[in-house]
């Protein structure tokens, strides 16, 4: 589904990604771990098409199609979803209206009719129940005054609504208490299928107890320096990132 080949990217002439290679197949969950500043968030931003990052070399393919020339919204229309580490507050636009616009724009781009209003409401209700989101919450301005946990839950709610092929969860666990973490993970697990794939970006192993990865990759200094199964996450938890750093510097 996703193929990343020798990806180099920089921001303001500073090279952050220095040759990433990764392949994610449908039905798989990949975890990307690494110390602060290793390039985790940059990688997710580049896949989603953030124009502040310049891809200097390499390619990203989704189902064989090079994403290089596609705007962020076009990538979204093809099924890429990025759950933000810091979701943006948009006062004056309700969660419902935002979702309605996002879904209908995506449908339009894929040559489909707009979703009828009653169907949309039913869909919203169904997905908000999945994330245990209170109905009142949906008429509030998007992310405005939401707690950290509410913001993250709202991100996964949007993921549920948009039904992406490839979901990248960037530090979705940060700022979550244990109950919120359980709800979010539970939601993600229910959305997982043979036809989609999930990349979980996290600093800690905690989330991976709930969303169990098929593969774990360690990102350090702009490169994937270690890959393995889920046991790698436990090893990292136990030994810390210094172990990786020492290994790299040796």
């Amino acid at each position: 589904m996703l193929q990343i080949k020798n990806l180099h990217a920089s921001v303001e002439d500073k090279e952050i990604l220095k040759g990433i290679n990764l392949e994610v197949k449908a039905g798989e969950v990949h975890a990307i771990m690494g110390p602060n500043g290793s390039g985790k968030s940059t990688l997710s931003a580049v896949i989603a098409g953030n124009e502040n990052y310049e891809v200097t070399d390499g390619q990203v393919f989704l189902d064989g199609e090079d994403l290089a020339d596609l705007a962020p919204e076009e990538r979204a229309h093809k099924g890429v979803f990025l759950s933000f580490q810091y979701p943006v507050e948009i006062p004056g636009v309700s969660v419902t209206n935002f979702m309605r616009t996002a879904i209908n724009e995506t449908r339009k781009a894929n040559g489909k009719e707009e979703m009828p209003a009653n169907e949309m409401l039913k869909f919203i209700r169904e997905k908000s129940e999945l994330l245990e989101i209170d109905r009142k919450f949906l008429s509030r301005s998007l992310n405005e005054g939401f707690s950290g946990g509410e913001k993250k839950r709202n991100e996964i709610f949007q993921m549920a609504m948009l039904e992406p092929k490839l979901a990248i969860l960037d530090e979705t666990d940060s700022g979550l208490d244990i109950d919120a973490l359980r709800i979010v993970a539970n939601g993600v697990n229910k959305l997982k299928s043979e036809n989609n794939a999930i990349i979980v970006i996290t600093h800690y192993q905690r989330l991976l107890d709930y969303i169990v990865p098929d593969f774990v990759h360690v990102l350090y200094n702009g490169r994937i320096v270690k890959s393995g199964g889920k046991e790698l996450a436990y090893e990292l938890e136990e030994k810390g990132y210094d172990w990786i750093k020492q290994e790299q510097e040796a």
Partner: protein
Amino acid sequence: MELKEKLIASFMAFEERVDVDADLHNIRTSAIQNFESKGFPTKKEEAWKYTSLNSLLKNDFTVFPKNENTIQFADVKKYFLHEIDTYKVVFIDGIFSSFLSSTTHDGIDVCLMSSALNKPKYKMVIDNYFNHIANKEESLTSLNTAFASEGAYINIPKSKVTDKPIEIMYFSTGSEAALLVQPRNLVIVGENSHVQIIERHQSLNENAVLTNSVTEIFAQKRAIVDYYKIQNDNHTASLIDNTYVSQQQESRVHVNTFSFGGSLTRNNLNFYHFGERIESHLNGITIIGERQHVDHYTLVHHAQPNCESFQDYKGIFSDNAIGVFNGKIYVEKEAQKTNAFQKNNNILLSDKATINAKPQLEIFADDVKCSHGCTIGQLDETAMFYMQSRGIPKKEAKALLMYAFSNAVIESIKIPELKQRITKIIANKLGVKLGFDL
């Protein structure tokens, strides 16, 4: 002949044409004298530092249109809020159109200034209100007063809630190459009464129009006035709007100004307090581009204790557009426990767009809460990326953000149809179709 000379020369002829009693004659005469000595304002005056009338005044304006013109309702229907559910006072090139209007004397007066000025039964009201709150020193207001003969006259007696909104509409047909119109509105809202008014100026072709309008609003005790100004005229029309609001105890007046069109627009909006526990609300949304120019010049004069005023002006400027916001809050020594707030937020969408923002607070009381906040920025790039990453294209994302930006003011519109209408105008302006109504 320069416009100033032309106007002064026309004054005598004008006075001969209208029936006037001595009192009105005196008011007009001193007004034309004030205009004669001050002339049109120039950039040398502090209040006009950022807005020049020079190039506008080079037009050879006709002061009195030669012909009476008619228009078909079908052609202008789109400018009205409703076909039947509003009172309408409609003018074509400054002349009342009974055909397009729907006035009333049934319990409330929604009619013509010319009748009020000429008929004896209105004399007492005119004596008590006409030109009482308008600034007699201000030259453009004086110019209007000198030629004041037509406009909307609205008088709501006490304890009346008007059953439907009132639309005041000024059309110009463009039958003159350049036309100067000077409407004069008088709105009196009695104790405990409530009225909603929508005012709009619309020119119907590309010929130049300059409107120099004066509106006096008197809100008696506990009266509620919601006044909406829709400024979405075409690019050859300019407007100088002078609005004066006089408020008695516990009255609540909202003036909402939506400035989307026109070439040059200047809004002089003045509030004066004559009682305690008054609320004044001044809201504005300005969305302009090309070489459009919109100047908001507001004054809230707090003269009594325990009053509140709220100003919230949002501006979005693209291309070479120029915006001005000058907000003055004056708090007299007696006006203790005043709450006066002012917000002015602006987004510049191009490097060549300009906003000149100037809060002016003059406070002589010591127990007050007054604040002002002004921001000037660009659209938030992170928010743009966030929305795009959810599949919302750049153009729509931009529009949605601009909506969000002006939402607080849109939300303050109390007439649902008008809210929809304004939303639609904004959507058209931004060239998007939004999948929902805000």
